[in-house]
């Protein structure tokens, strides 16, 4: 008896252990079966239905080759991950590929040893050369575009669009230089984003900037649903990556180079999230400290997929309903009779009276009398001159 009882309890203990193990395995199995479902749920949680990208390179001239290469590389990644050209607004000075100083014309390389030509056959630049101005950039963002602008130059986003904005160039504390002649301040940029939010022109916005002191540009944002990344903090410079001795200039900036290495591993179905993007380019590689800002963003960056902004993964639903149509409907007579517009045969119309334009005299600009400020200033100067040096000079003048 004494020997049987421990044996029985021992058997019961092992049976209990086995049951526990089975339960655990069962739970694991259920959890594993649940995770594709979870993934599908997470995938649908972002709430956007289309993606746009606005890629801006704000410099011109040959020695700013790396900024154009930056922008074109991001353009290629974004296209590879699925955003079509119709949804990308690319603003470049576009003076690199055909620059007389380019030893390999019609190419823009992003990697030493000329591995990858980012200026391929299908680059579609929407704003080029002198059209890249602060005014045009703000017009694209806010939508206050003259009615004659074609569709490809517009940002036709709606309240379910996720927009990626990438800017690169030369910047300072609170401003970004456009084409060496004007600048955009962080206040103006924040106001433009607020105008976009007021009109619900975006669902979520990812702002990436690769310039010196880039973090100053996102300090002033105050609209919701914006996430910002910058290549350097205030007071730091963003450095370039590597010069190419054949071309003679630096080919890319460090931050964008490492971001692109990161993006090369992303494919349209990948589940990588934003936290991984924040870790790209630590100080040891980049020399500057990349920064990011997520306080305005409502979702947790852990749950935001890279492809939410860089790719264009659409929500789909299976169609389960059909209409039933009567097949034998002969010609249909519209309830609202269409009037046949009297069309005359088309003929070529003189578009521009070229001869008239060439021989036109230049238009007289209307003359405005000088304003009060100028008049007052000159009166002051003249009065002071004559008072100081004596009235006797007047008779020499008049």
């Amino acid at each position, binding site marked *: 008896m004494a020997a049987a009882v421990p044996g029985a309890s021992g058997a019961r203990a092992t049976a209990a252990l086995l049951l526990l193990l089975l339960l655990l395995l069962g739970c694991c199995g259920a959890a594993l079966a649940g995770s594709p479902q979870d993934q599908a749920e997470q995938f649908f949680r*972002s709430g956007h239905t289309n993606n746009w990208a606005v890629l801006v390179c704000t410099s011109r001239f040959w020695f700013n080759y790396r900024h154009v290469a930056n922008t074109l590389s991001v353009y290629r990644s974004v296209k590879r991950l*699925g955003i079509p050209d119709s949804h990308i607004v690319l603003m470049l000075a576009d003076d690199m590929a055909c620059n007389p100083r380019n030893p390999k014309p019609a190419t823009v390389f992003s990697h030493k040893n000329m591995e990858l030509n980012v200026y391929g056959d299908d680059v579609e630049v929407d704003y080029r050369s002198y059209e890249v101005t602060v005014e045009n950039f703000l017009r694209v963002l806010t939508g206050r575009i003259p009615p004659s602008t074609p569709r490809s130059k517009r940002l036709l986003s709606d309240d379910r669009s996720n927009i990626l904005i990438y800017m690169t160039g030369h910047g300072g504390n609170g401003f970004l230089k456009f084409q060496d002649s004007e600048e955009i301040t962080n206040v103006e940029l924040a106001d433009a984003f607020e105008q976009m939010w007021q*009109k619900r022109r975006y669902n979520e916005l990812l702002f990436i900037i690769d310039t010196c002191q880039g973090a100053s540009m996102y300090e002033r944002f105050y609209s919701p649903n914006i996430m910002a990344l910058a290549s350097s903090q205030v007071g730091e410079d963003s450095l370039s990556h590597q010069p190419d001795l054949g071309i003679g200039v630096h080919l890319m900036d460090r931050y964008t180079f490492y971001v692109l290495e990161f993006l090369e591993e992303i494919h349209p179905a990948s589940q990588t999230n934003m936290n991984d993007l924040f870790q790209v380019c630590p100080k040891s590689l980049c020399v500057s400290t990349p920064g990011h800002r997520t306080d305005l963003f409502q979702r947790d960056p852990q749950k935001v997929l890279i492809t939410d902004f860089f790719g264009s993964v659409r929500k*789909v*639903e*299976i169609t389960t309903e059909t209409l039933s149509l009567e097949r034998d409907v002969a010609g249909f007579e519209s309830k609202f009779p269409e009037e046949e517009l009297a069309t005359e045969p088309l003929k070529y119309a003189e578009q521009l009276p070229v001869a008239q334009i060439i021989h036109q005299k230049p238009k007289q600009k209307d003359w405005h009398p000088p304003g009060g400020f100028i008049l007052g200033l000159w009166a002051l100067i003249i009065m*002071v001159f004559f008072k100081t040096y004596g009235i006797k000079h007047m008779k020499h003048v008049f």
Partner: protein
Amino acid sequence: QVQLVVPMAVVFGPGSVPRDLPRPLPFRDVQEMEISVNLRSSVTSRYEMRYRSTTGQEEAALAAATAREADAALYPLQDTTLGSLTMYVVPETSSLLPQGINVYVGKHRSALVRAVGSLAALQARLREVAQVMSFTAGSIAAALSDRVPDGRLSPDARRNLKSSLGYEITFSLLNPDPKSHTVDWDIEGAVNRYVKPVLDKLSLVANFSVDSQILYYAVLGVTPRYDKESSSFLLSAHSLPHVINPVEARLGSSAASLYPVLNFLLYVPERSHSPLYIQDKDGAPVSTNAFHSPRWGGIMVYNVEAPASPQASLPLHVDVDVARVMEVFLAQLRLLFGLSREEVPPEFLLECPGNEGLADWELDHLLWAHTVENIATVSTTLTSLAQLLDKIGNIVIKDDVASEVYRAVASVQSAVTKLSLGHLHAAFQASKEAVTSSERAFFDPSLLHLLYFPDDQKFAIYIPLFLPMAVPILLSLAKIVRETRLRKKEPTKMD
């Protein structure tokens, strides 16, 4: 606030009058309900019901054999203005409605409702029918989805097309393998026969323009899997989102118009990947072989039967059965607009709309949602425009911008008034005008704030210019003042 008024007529057929009527027929009653949109604003819905008994003609019509015939006979006798509803109450034991069905909703704006014992229960049922036929709290909230705080609505609710003045519909035939298949489709005939009736009915809502194209060598972005059991190729549900992107780059859109584009693609799979079926989440092939993406459009896969003899000469000639294709595309068009028949309670029987594509009450459904959405859009636009103009003190407002703003305000006020009177058509037109005017005013190119220098920038530019110049001037001025004062004092000093 916005009040949505639905005028309803409730007609009691012989033998269906409930016993506990408060007053003898005919009488009027009003039911109000509040739909709260967010913490501060809400929309009230008001059902104005006129109870009456049937006229002789209506009784004769209700004596028909089936519900469909009764509905057809009743149609000329009803009030068919947009937004109004008519409900005919038939006795509980009536055989007009099939067994187990309590409500029959016709093609136009009427319904046949089976009577219930008490007035309260009947009113509950009538309210349910009215909600199906006009608007529900969910549909109004979905229309105002950008004003609802984020947490309360599921992401699925934001998938209907936004209200717009026009839509462009593009039908594309994708033929990735022209060497094996020569595909012909009579799209123009199909559009005239099947699509135009639907678009004519929807022409109240927006302008539609239709075009079509054929794309060769356009492949899907995903390689389908071969399934041995059914000896066919399968596209699983989770690979569908990646199908659209490679094709979209080639679809193109009209350069001139800014209306949203709805793409309907018909894909004829390559001979090496035929037949191709779409699998849903449970692994079963989808009967329609089609899927759609909210706010974008739909794709249908059209399988070509394998040729009878394996030595048939390539390319095979394929004539697309456009009627079958249009059934699916038009159903997808309805789903894109949010007209789904899936959330209807089971004891309802809905009449098929036939070739018109949608019933009159479904059109009303759209109009209610779009009117409310337009009014919300106009108020947010005008508010943000006012905030912008407040912030920049020296902005110049052109006369036409000002007149557009006035027109927008007047139109939106008229839309709200018409809604509270129950004139849905007029309210919708007014809301459309309001949206056009407010968009034109808000997006006027002259309102770019960059063009108006803020005062601190003026200081920043002019001070470095004039300050150095001003220093000697000011010093000289001081010297002059001192000299005049000295000279004034001198005569008094001299004796």
